[in-house]
């Protein structure tokens, strides 16, 4: 007998379980990644927070952020009290308690004091390289987006950008070392009064001499700038191309020259986009270690870069500490113990907060930009 009920299939549809299984698997993988990321941050925050946050106002350990980096001395005095003092306070302590014996002394390099040197160094390196890269990168992007027609030259430029973007960072380190540290001093070696490369400045006695290459701030900046140039060019070209063609046509129709058009009608509208994407480049520059290992960074430095200099441009030819290199030193060169944890996890947390602020800033700005600039 015909039963219409038979036409309706009972139970879950065909392939339902397979569907659920595959979706669950893929979703599981995805959320596993998210979980791992969250765990990583949790670990760093939990271990690093005691180093840089305090329970009292202003809730941030200002000393850790503003003091210079020193060797940490850990020792017991005769009463069995444990002291942890950075090198300068250690000698003060010894002077204050002459004749007293100390026991179980241990020293931990780079673990005492604060991380002012590395923070300042990273800031200088980042600023210098981003200024260089933005200047040359934006100019190159203007050419590519506004002037260029199909030609062998443009093909070569595009190929070069593509290849530069793929070069491993350590190869940039080798390049910076051989060009800016070894070759550049030879080229610029002639004395200041005879050299053709000297630009006298208006202020008395100061001159921009392009000398002082070697392992230095400017060598590091130049290397990093070469590294992020392709990123900046690509991003700038994209935001230049996003400006509607009508803007240019209108300006040209009014009799404006090409340069006037670019200056008044294209650049102002693409500038926010360029700056936003360059934030991403800053994140990358701040985090790179390999290119500055041989070109700019030192593990230990007593002074901040500008201290003890007569000419302010001397900063450019001084070596600096850098936060990523400092973290590398802390991780690789010193044995881990309970006394080095503060320096290690504290530096990493500060560094990560810096990077997080930069990259979240660029994400938010990008989202805002997309909403605001719709033509």
């Amino acid at each position, binding site marked *: 007998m015909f039963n219409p009920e038979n036409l309706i299939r009972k139970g879950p549809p065909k*392939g339902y379980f397979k569907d659920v299984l*595959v*979706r669950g698997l*893929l*979703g599981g*993988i*995805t*959320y596993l*990644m*998210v979980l*791992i*990321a969250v765990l990583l941050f949790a*670990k760093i925050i939990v271990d690093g927070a005691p180093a840089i946050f305090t329970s009292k106002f202003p809730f941030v350990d200002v000393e850790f952020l503003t003091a210079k980096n020193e060797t940490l001395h850990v020792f017991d005095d005769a009463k*069995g009290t444990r002291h942890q003092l950075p090198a300068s306070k250690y000698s003060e302590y010894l002077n204050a308690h002459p004749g007293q*014996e100390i*026991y179980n002394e241990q020293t931990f390099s780079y673990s005492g004091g604060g991380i002012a040197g590395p923070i300042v160094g990273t800031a200088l390196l980042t600023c210098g390289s981003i200024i260089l890269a933005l200047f*040359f990168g934006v*100019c*190159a992007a203007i*050419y590519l987006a*506004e*002037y*260029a*027609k199909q030609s062998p*030259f*443009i093909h070569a*430029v595009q190929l*070069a950008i*593509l*290849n530069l973007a*793929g*070069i*491993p*960072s*350590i*190869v940039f*380190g*080798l*390049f910076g070392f*051989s060009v800016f540290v*070894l*070759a550049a001093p030879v080229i610029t070696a002639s004395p200041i009064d005879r050299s053709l490369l000297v630009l006298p400045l208006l202020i008395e006695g100061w001159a921009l001499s392009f000398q002082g290459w070697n392992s230095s701030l400017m060598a590091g900046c130049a290397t990093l700038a070469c590294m992020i140039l*392709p990123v900046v*060019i690509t991003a700038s070209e994209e935001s230049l191309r996003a400006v509607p063609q009508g803007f240019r046509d209108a300006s040209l129709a009014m009799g404006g*020259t*090409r*340069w006037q058009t670019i200056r008044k009608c294209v650049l102002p509208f693409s500038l926010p986009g360029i700056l936003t994407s360059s934030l991403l480049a800053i994140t990358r520059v701040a*985090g790179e*270690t*390999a290119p500055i290992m041989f070109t700019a960074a030192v593990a230990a430095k007593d002074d901040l870069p500008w201290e003890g200099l007569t000419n302010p441009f001397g900063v450019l030819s001084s070596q600096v500490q850098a936060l990523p290199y400092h973290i590398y030193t802390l*991780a*690789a060169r010193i044995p*881990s113990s309970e006394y080095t944890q503060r320096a*290690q*996890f504290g530096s*990493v947390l500060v560094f990560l907060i810096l*990077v*997080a602020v*930069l*990259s979240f800033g660029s994400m938010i700005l990008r989202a805002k930009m997309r909403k605001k600039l719709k033509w």
Partner: protein
Amino acid sequence: MVSPNSSSESSGHRFQRRGFSFERAIRFFFASNAGLTIFILLLIIVFLLREGLGFFPGYRRELEVYRIAGLEFVDISRENLSAHEQVTSLLNRAYQAEINGKCLAELQRSQEAAALYNSFSDQVGPTRDLILNNPAAMTGGDGGMLAVLRANYEAQRAKALTKLPTTPHLSEAEREELINSLRNRPAEATDEPPLVANLNAAFVAARQTHSDPLQKFRETIDNFETAGMDLGSIVMEMTESVTATKEILQSADILEKDRKTLLAAATNAKDPVEREKLIADAKASLADKPDVEGPMAMLMEKKPDCVKVHEQLVGAVGEVFPSLPDTLTQANALRYLNTAKSAWPVLIEDLKATPGKINSWTHTDPVPLSAAFISFLTGKSWVTGGEWQDFYGLIPLAVGSLMIAIVALTIAIPVGIGAAIYVNQFAAPREQALVKPVIEFIQAIPSVVLGFLGIMVFGTILREISTLDSLNWIPGFPIDERLNIFTAGCLLALMSVPTIFSLAEDALNNVPAAYAEASEALGASRLQTAFRVMVPAAFSGILAAVLLGLGRVIGETMVVLLVAGNRIKIPDFSEGIGAFFQPSHTLTGIIAQELGEVPLGSVHYRALFVIGITLFITVLGINATAHHVLTRSKK
């Protein structure tokens, strides 16, 4: 497009009439900035080659000295010696693994008790030393201070007793007993707690009982070991004489170089007096032609002895083979034994071929430039700064890089592509908004931070996991080294997942919506649409994503420098999959580690640049392939 003004001819500034104009100048300025990228790329290539190419002649000279001084001759015998030693160590490992496997229970109990005791000692050590070292403790004076120190010690002890490692193989009562003995232990005591000593004694006894049936195996191993003694002593004798010759040759080379520098300076010198002086210096620096023939003749006198020792060794090795046990009870012991047995015919073959090699070797054979090239590309050792001979072989570094890349991609490909498919095809918009930024943010984490986490956290966790009994079946577990290929691979996987994810997601996004609509119109389920339509359509994009991920993994420096373990050796593949749990070194890591320490311009320094060139070519090749795949698919 040139400014419209430039077309107006006669009017305007005179520069304009000659084809110059402000507009053109600006255009030229921007074009030169674009050309800067080409300039930088060329500069990179030129300087890498400039520093790197000097490597091959320099290395050729080193290899020539290696031959002329007779080091190569000694190395023929030395290689046999080390092969013999390797087989011996394999047999010994088989023997130890067999015994330890049989008394595993005792071994674990003894180890756990010792670990607990050691952990306690480490924790209370500083406060205890303070009591023992204090002068007051000797003289008996100043009881007050001692009391303070003792109180500190007790406090530290109480703290230490709460932070002891777990002991899964000890019974509750035993653990309790051990902890009690530690609690009541006087600060001055130096002997081990009774339970630790007892368990150790039990372990030694168990070893004894289990080693009795293996007596014959032990004797075989010992016989085999003594067979190599003669070879060892003759190699040692020859080593001394050839090292002396090498030193003479090297110092002659240095003098020669000095002379050339002086002569070059002399030709440039303007002042004739100074020039005369430089030329005189150069003449004084002229080295006597180093005498290599004398020592070489003495070395050649050893030839017959060397041949004789090898012939004896072949006999001895052949005799030992039949007396090896057929099988062993423990799996890993059997694996070692089988590896040793499979190496046997090769060893005998090599030993038999050696006399021929020894007799045909002459120190006067020329060393062509191609020898340096081949030795670099196929050399199995990277030895630098050694007393014997520096070798710059690419293989150990390339193998390390490759194995790390394999681990990283094995993890990152399924995770990255799986997540991309899920986010693009199945996830709700709200999920997308959560997952995408998080994964993008992983990309922003600097590599040195990941390396730091690997060294501080992940390596330790991984090793602890590997000591679990339930995971013993995985080859290579428990892991010996905290920092190894697998640890580095996992962290690099974390780095390359975002790259693969975002590129693969882009590729899926770029598939025209009509594909999915058509598929659904035909009645396909979401799953079928995703896997039979979308993924195949985006395949080339996904492939490009994987290749770019590979490029990133190979070129990454800081993570591998910190986490890969930095041992320059080809991993021991006799361990099977366990080879992935050994430390290794990489192409990128070696540059970062050694460039800061080498003398500028030395062969070693140039070798690092050649590694840089290799890396440059490899990564650019991978990236070019990826872009080729992408552009072909777009057509």
